[in-house]
Each structure stands twice: as structure tokens, then as C-alpha cells.
């Protein structure tokens, strides 16, 4: 069966520090991968998606970037965090246009 791992679960980082969140998927090949951010009362916002290794599409301009160095690995990064980067980050995967499956999320607090 397919599983998705996302870590860390919680993270407190100072403003201006770098960020690296990692997500890996098991049990499937060539999945579509997604990074979402959830802010209170605002639902989920798609940040990045990827249909293959090295292929990244950004949905909104921001202080973040994403990379896919391996088929089932998706990384969310920032060189310098802003206070506005705080939120709940969710990684997800899907196969073609079927439903998406989500990781457990990372609660990021920038202080």
C-alpha cells in the first residue's frame, strides 16, 4: 500500500533562517506531488506541484521554493524565512487526476 511521510511534525524557526521540509512517498511510482499551505480560516492553498523529477510548477509567487531530486521525494525550502511563512504545510501525492493523499503536515512557526 502507498504511504506518505512528512517531517518534521513541528518546527520553530527564527526570521531570516533557512527552511527545509521533506516529503517522501512509498508504494507508488511517478506520482504527482504537491505542497499546500493551510492558514487559519483560509482553507488550503496550493504552493507547488510536480509531475516528475526536476519538474516543478509554482502556483503563487512567494519566499519559498520546491525541488524534486528523486521520483518520490519532494522538498520545500526557503533561504530566509519571513513571519508570514508561518502555517501548516501539507505534502500530498496523486496518480494522474485521481484524489490526492496527504501527509500528516508540518506546523511551522516563524518567530
Amino acid at each position, binding site marked *: 500500500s502507498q504511504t506518505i511521510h512528512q517531517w518534521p511534525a513541528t518546527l520553530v524557526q527564527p526570521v531570516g533562517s533557512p527552511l527545509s521540509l521533506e516529503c517522501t512517498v512509498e508504494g507508488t511510482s511517478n506520482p504527482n506531488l504537491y505542497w499546500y499551505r493551510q492558514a487559519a480560516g483560509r482553507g*488550503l492553498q496550493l504552493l507547488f506541484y510536480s509531475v516528475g523529477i526536476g519538474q516543478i*510548477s509554482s502556483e503563487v509567487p512567494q519566499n519559498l521554493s520546491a525541488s524534486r531530486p528523486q521520483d518520490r521525494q519532494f522538498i520545500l525550502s526557503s533561504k530566509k524565512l519571513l513571519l508570514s511563512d508561518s502555517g501548516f504545510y501539507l505534502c500530498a501525492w496523486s496518480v494522474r*487526476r485521481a484524489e490526492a493523499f496527504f501527509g500528516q503536515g508540518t506546523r511551522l512557526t516563524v518567530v
Partner: protein
Amino acid sequence: AQSVTQLDSQVPVFEEAPVELRCNYSSSVSVYLFWYVQYPNQGLQLLLKYLSGSTLVKGINGFEAEFNKSQTSFHLRKPSVHISDTAEYFCAVSPPYGGATNKLIFGTGTLLAVQP
């Protein structure tokens, strides 16, 4: 472009009472529809989905939803709720065509608060 509206930010209900969580969508093309549930500080879990076929779809935990194309709605229902159903519920849509990706568009969520 597609959009999703969940008018109710919070729905309080007593245990064992029925509940309906409303979802309306806007799209000029046919869409796939989903309901997800999120428990505190956790990821999203798929409750049910509508891709095609029967407009009444049944999901996990006793939930069901009905796709109404004329009203562009996909309301979620449960005949008798439990305390354990307390969670945030998200409606989502994705276009059935337009590439290989499934870029889900989410509503802002409805908090279902079940009271004893």
C-alpha cells in the same frame, strides 16, 4: 476557473442528530468533487469522492454526499453524528481534464462541532 464555497464556517450539532455540511462550486466544465476530513494537527483524509455515475456517493464513517449538477452543489450528510466526528471538513474540486495533475481547489472548511 473553478472555485468552491463552504458558506458555514462552523456547524454545531448535538450527538446523534443529523447534519448537513454545504458545498457549492463554480465551474464552466465538468469537475471531480471530493470531501476531506481533518482532525486537529493532522493531514487530510479522504471521506468520499464523485467522479461520475451515481450522484449519491457513500464514504467512510457513515458519511454520504449528493452531487447536484443543476445547483452546482455537493453537500455532505450524516444521519447521526458522534462526538468523534468533531473535525474540520473540506470540500474540493478538480477539473477532470487539463493535464496530468490534480490541482485540487479547496473551500475554506467547515468545523463540525458535535456536542454531547
